[in-house]
């Protein structure tokens, strides 16, 4: 079965991104497909490579990057939500005249259409949020 996942809360502030991560890991372990993980609202903050959590805490962004690499996951950050919150890739930073980007490896920034497309293509869409 094909799952589409929405993460709509920021990391550390809320358990949502942890729950989503545990769900995705379990779904993959059971042989399901995860067609996309879409990060929306404050969930876009999961994709910054500049966070420095204490060493004895879980590394949320690194966990997603590693899981994404292992299973070739499509980790999509909503561009509209990302621009509001200061999450940029190299192209966006250039286009907007900003002096830096901060997107982490394995994530990509794209439009809200990716969320709708995920809903159309996935057998089940599940949202982790507040």
């Amino acid at each position, binding site marked *: 079965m094909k799952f589409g996942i*929405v993460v*709509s809360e920021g990391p550390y502030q809320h358990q949502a991104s942890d729950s989503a991560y545990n769900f995705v890991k379990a779904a993959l372990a059971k042989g399901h497909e995860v067609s996309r993980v879409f990060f*929306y*609202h404050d969930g876009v903050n999961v994709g910054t490579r500049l966070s420095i959590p204490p060493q004895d805490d879980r590394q949320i962004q690194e966990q997603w990057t590693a899981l994404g690499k292992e299973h070739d996951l499509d980790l999509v950050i909503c561009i*509209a*939500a990302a621009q509001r919150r200061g999450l940029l890739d190299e192209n966006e930073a250039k286009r907007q005249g900003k002096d830096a980007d901060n997107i982490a490896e394995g994530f990509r920034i794209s*439009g*809200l*259409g990716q*969320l*709708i*497309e995920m*809903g*159309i*293509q996935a057998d089940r*869409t599940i*949202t982790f*949020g507040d």
Partner: protein
Amino acid sequence: MSETIKKFLYVNRKAPYGTIYAQESLEVVLIGAAFDQDVSLAFLDDGVFQLTKGQDTKEIGLKNFSATYRALGDYEVTKLYVEKESLEERGLTLDDLQNIEYEDEDDDYAEKSSIRLISRAEMAEVMADQDVVLSF
């Protein structure tokens, strides 16, 4: 854009302005309209506050997006289900909500209300009739 037509329900249960959910939900609805899916919006619990008349955000500095609900008809988003019990619990009636209309192209472009006032039991039926439920 796609051969598949699915029933999408956007569930709105939060009041506007205090948090961003209502505003960013609306942004999804507007983008989603381009995908020619069967779209409905549900307003229940505090979500009914999104549709009230007379919102004026000047003094708080936030963007007033309430007029956007009236434009949904232009995007062919014409099914706004509002739960009667949620209104009543909050001391509201239909008169407290904006007029949100669409032009029915199958009926000589007659102006019709997009707001469909339904009971909690009917809302449960609407929810159970969907392929994709997105909650905000």
